């Protein structure tokens, strides 16, 4: 449903559209990384990656200014401040886009292409995806190699399930984001996992570790301020290699 032509606000405020990069405001660094991958260059992040609960974020005056000046405001859907700020400053509601954030190749590919069509930066996005595919395959292979022939049993927090596939494994169980119930704990414990893929941003898997002596592997989803999505894959690959690789 997103419009492929830039909204009128942009064309009127920036008549020399070809030379001036689009101003993108992203709710979080994760959303920002998708925009960057799609080819945006002028990206302002509202909630820094340090904010645990994006729904709670209290924007600053500079955030308001950024939204007022933005060509597009991107958010993941649950950050109430993004649509409210956009509505408060007025202007076309079409500037506001939701982006599905998930670190799986399929979602990344779909969302990056969709955004690039909007930004008019398709070639950049395709170049990124080519690089991404190669990197993903390489890093994923490294992890699989480190694991070796065995297939350790893992359970995973709901929002880091894609990393289980990344490691070439199947999750024996999933928990979160709600707190564990005793039955979940019992079921997940009974699965006798060797590893727990924990979402470092939310937590919640510690009781399983307690009950099973499984190793907790802390995985990230949000990139740093450099908005480098590939760095997230690099970092998690390293984490996974050193954790899974040490299995006897």
């Amino acid at each position, binding site marked *: 449903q997103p419009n492929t032509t830039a909204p009128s606000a942009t064309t009127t405020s920036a008549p020399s559209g070809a030379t001036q990069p689009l101003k993108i405001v992203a709710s979080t660094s994760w959303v920002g990384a998708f925009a960057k991958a799609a080819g945006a260059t002028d990206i302002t992040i509202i909630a820094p990656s340090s904010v645990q609960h994006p*729904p709670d974020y*209290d*924007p600053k005056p500079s955030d308001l200014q950024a939204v007022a000046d933005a060509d597009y405001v991107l958010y993941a*859907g*649950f950050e109430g401040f993004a649509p409210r*700020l956009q509505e*408060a400053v007025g202007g076309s509601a079409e500037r506001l886009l939701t982006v599905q954030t998930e670190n799986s190749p399929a979602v990344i590919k779909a969302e990056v292409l969709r955004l690039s069509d909007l930004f008019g930066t398709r070639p950049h996005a395709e170049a990124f995806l080519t690089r991404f595919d190669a990197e993903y395959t390489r890093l994923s292979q490294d992890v699989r190699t480190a694991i070796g022939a065995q297939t350790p049993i893992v359970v995973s927090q709901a929002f880091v399930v894609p990393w289980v596939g990344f490691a070439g494994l199947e999750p024996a169980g999933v928990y979160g984001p*709600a707190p564990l119930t005793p039955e979940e704990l019992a079921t997940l414990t009974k699965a006798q996992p060797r590893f727990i893929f924990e979402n470092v941003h939310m937590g919640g898997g510690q009781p399983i570790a307690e009950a099973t002596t499984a190793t907790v592997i802390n995985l990230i989803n949000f990139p740093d301020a450099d908005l480098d999505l590939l760095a997230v894959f690099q970092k998690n690959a390293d984490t996974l290699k050193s954790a899974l690789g040490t299995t006897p």
Partner: protein
Amino acid sequence: MNSVEFIDLLRLLPVQRAIIALIVAGSAFPIIGVWIMGLNILPVRFAMMHVALFGIALGLLLGIEPTLIALLVCGASGASLAPLAHRPAGLAGPMGIVMTMAIASALLLLSQTGINANGAFELLWGSILATRQSDLIVLVVVSIGILGVYGWQRRDIALLLYDREIALCSGIAVDRLTMGLLIIIALSIAAAVRLTGALLVDAITILPAIAARNLGQSLGSMIAWAMAIGVVGNLVGFCLTLMFNQPPGPMLVITVGCITILSYLRKEPV
């Protein structure tokens, strides 16, 4: 930040709206704050946020407009406290029950139904910088309502907060008045959280009222103090917000909070 940027910010419509909102709400909501002090239900803002969360979860579950359900549940929880007001231990305990039971029920409902908690939280979100035209209108209406109720019932309220039995034997319908106040408090707090942000509600209700309790010698003078501190403190805090580019909620709470702490220097409050 230099002055040019400050002026730039003032040109933004939401910033102008925020200033109007701070003046309007800052002069009406401290009245609510003083009632809250008098009824000894200071954590009501926390309680209402959690009751609202429960209402939202319920609304999402039933497929009815969640903010409506949230308001209804907030009003009902306020009303449900009224019959306990005459007890020797007062309303602090019942408010504590509402607060903890609401969180627990909300979490249970969310975990039961698998509703995305983020979506529920999102509906509770507000910020003074994100005040829309429609928000401002609602805020003005609510504020005028509060001022009206106070103007109309202030003598009875003064006696009620002083002593329930004396109010009763002065011919005041104590139960009805208590329930009315509790419902107004619950609804306006719930609305204000959504319209202006949670922390701002603290800065315009509770904190000015705590300061006024130290400074005023009657309901009238306390409310005058609270309104003055509400408006002035929040405008000063908002200027600091703009000047130092800080999140407004925390900044306003800290500004008004400092004034409140200073009010404790007054030696002999009544």
